[in-house]
């Protein structure tokens, strides 16, 4: 057995795990059932979570690797009972049908929107092709992807919450 410490959705955890477990096993054992096992071999993206803000397939990631790291799943994206801007965009665009792929897609979009902002990319310059390429690791059998692309577009066009905070606290 192996002990590790990590943060899951902003809460610190000390865990004892079997070194053979995947990050998917670890998170589902913590009750975070938004993390879905679809293919189990890194092709469908239903298990996508963020490790230090980077999207990874939890099914192809050793639990042991998250020691000292920060994990985000869709459960942690709701703040004070409000959906995150990305989650809200998926609702508004009608990008959720059966819902199995949705948690993974939300996390991929969350990482994508964050990295576009960090790189200072103008949402106007981001093409539907860019959005599709950035979400190529997530399969959806229901929507045909068009509404998902629209949801990502809406999420990109929303004001950056981190910038809003700095503006409101500025003198």
């Amino acid at each position, binding site marked *: 057995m192996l002990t590790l410490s990590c943060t899951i959705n902003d809460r610190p955890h000390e865990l004892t795990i*079997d*070194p*053979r*477990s*995947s990050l998917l*096993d670890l998170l589902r054992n913590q009750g975070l059932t938004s993390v879905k096992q679809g293919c*189990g*071999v*890194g*092709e469908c*993206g239903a298990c*996508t979570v963020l490790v230090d803000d*980077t*999207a*990874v*397939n939890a099914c*192809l*990631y*050793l639990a*042991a*690797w998250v020691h000292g790291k920060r994990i985000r799943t869709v459960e942690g994206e709701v703040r004070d009972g409000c959906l995150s801007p990305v989650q809200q965009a998926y609702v508004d665009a009608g990008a959720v049908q059966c819902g199995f792929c949705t948690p993974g897609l939300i996390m*991929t979009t969350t990482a*994508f929107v964050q990295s576009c902002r960090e790189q200072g990319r103008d949402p106007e310059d981001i093409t539907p092709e860019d959005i599709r*390429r*950035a*979400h*190529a*690791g*997530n399969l959806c059998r229901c929507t045909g992807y068009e509404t998902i692309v629209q949801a990502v577009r809406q999420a990109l066009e929303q004001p950056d919450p981190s910038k809003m905070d700095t503006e409101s606290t500025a003198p």
Partner: protein
Amino acid sequence: MYAFESYHRPQSLTDAVALLAANPFARPMAGGTDILVRLREGHKDYADIVDIHGLPELEGMSADRGELRIGSGTTFAALMTSSLATRLAPMLIEAAGWVAGPQIRNTATIGGNICNGSACADSAAPLLVLNAHLDLIGPEGQRLIPLRGFHLGPGRVERRPGEILRSVRIKSEQDQGLGTAYVKYSMRQAMDIATIGCGAGVRLRDDQSNGIVDELRLAFTVAAPTPVRCPTAEAAARGLPLSQAVKAVAEALDQDVSPRTSWRAAGDFRMHIIRTLAERMIRTAAKRFASSAANHQEARTC
């Protein structure tokens, strides 16, 4: 749960080499995006794991006198966002974008892509064209060897017992005087295995797009049991004007490759793709060589 029987996570490269040397059946694992899939299938070859994921000595990129050094633990995503790698080895970056999808590129490493010995490794064609070298460290010490010849057969590479690939070394494309191009032919534009991958490096004798081919380097993935360079086609092109060179290459190519028939594609279809991509990539690489040579000329006269 992954089906491994023993698991060690060394804290240093020295410890990792010692652990591997102590158990001839142990395998190093970095990104795990291939090995964990095999473990899930219960593959016995991967029962003993030495986990080198995130070892600091295998991370990072640097450049020294025009030579790019890429730590073997560098992920494809890190490569793609590196301005250093983009400047010195644009061909490798072009190929990195073809690897699987974003989540896999965030975890999979260049070292794993080479060391698992796959004939369809997306990084292999550009690294062969760029005459990359591998820096390996093992119980007997360090050695620097060319990538060409490292692949022995499907899943087999010339990595000695206890050895770990520490870094990949590439002389900058500019210093090698090459225009380069890479393309992957696959059914899907992402999350797919190559049907054929093709990389070309071209240097022309004068700066015209119709110049004489001074040097051609051509490499394929999935065209043989290992990634291959094409010595016969390369020799056939030398000294010819570009349009004649592409014809000579098309005729010589079947001596360099041996594409197989699988459910993905028939052998003769693969051969057709090989010839088609060779011509396209040679022309693209020649165009890039001419335009970068023109830019240089401009910079000098300004």
